[in-house]
């Protein structure tokens, strides 16, 4: 499977899960801020990706979980350097550069983009 084929399938998943138009699903679109994803939608996306690509996604493998409630990772509404390092190690498909610039916890949701999902699937399938 090529990266373009992965991107097309991911687009279909998002159109289905979030009831958005195909044109809205651009690589840089934020799942939450641009496509309106709410918390349950992230689980829906995981289920639909599993179906579309035939792999299993472990809890916390695609999206970080429990970050907000862990004082090691978040202090006074800001992601700590330790938290950021841990997230980067656990979630290599996510581009954390925006969060490094402005590590407020409220910014975490915005870093999940359409391209994040494409990268995640490509990594899982071993596609360059």
């Amino acid at each position: 499977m090529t990266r373009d084929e992965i991107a097309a399938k991911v687009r279909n998943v998002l159109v289905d899960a979030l009831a958005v138009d195909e044109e809205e699903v651009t690589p840089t679109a934020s799942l939450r801020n641009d496509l309106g994803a709410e918390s349950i939608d992230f689980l829906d996306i995981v289920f639909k990706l599993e179906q579309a690509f035939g792999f299993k996604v472990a809890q916390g493998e695609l999206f970080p979980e429990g970050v907000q409630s862990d004082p090691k990772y978040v202090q006074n509404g800001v992601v700590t350097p330790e938290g950021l390092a841990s997230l980067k190690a656990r979630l290599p498909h996510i581009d954390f550069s925006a969060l490094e610039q402005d590590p407020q916890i409220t910014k975490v949701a915005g870093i999940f983009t359409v391209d994040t999902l494409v990268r995640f699937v490509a990594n899982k399938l071993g596609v360059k």
Partner: protein
Amino acid sequence: MRWMWIDRVIELVPRQKMVAVKNVSLAEEHLHDHFAADTQRGLIALPVMPASLILEGMAQTAGILVGHAEGFREKVILAKISRAELTADAAPGTTLRYTAEIERMDAVGASTRGAIDLLDHARPDAGFRPIGTIDLMFSHLDQNMAGAQFPEHNFVFGEGFKTLLRTSGIAVPD
């Protein structure tokens, strides 16, 4: 009025499928308002089960199926209506049949597919005919991503649900 929108569970295959029925009755008060006659507009009364309550019936069917899978230990909350399509009205004297199947389930929640069929008792030979599909997502409340805390007591599966299961011949954990 108890908030029960299914009358009986008629089949349960644990972790896979549940089938329940709901008899639509003119004794249900809301049918007299849905839809009442509107003399000004020259419209006669049309009592039919509100689609929102058909949705609730499917949510209860699928929710019990999901809750049963973990022995009703999880607080199973309807989190998303992924798809809902109804093509016919359910009038008094008909029976709705809800068939819910678990599509995917993990520690944090489940997605279900649902089919709705309608039996018109005036035409029993025609049997149940499909009138729609409702696909849902459920969240296990205590496993939510935000880490929010909820009371330990399982307030989702109360006495009403337990009675329904018992009268349907299904064992209920204490």
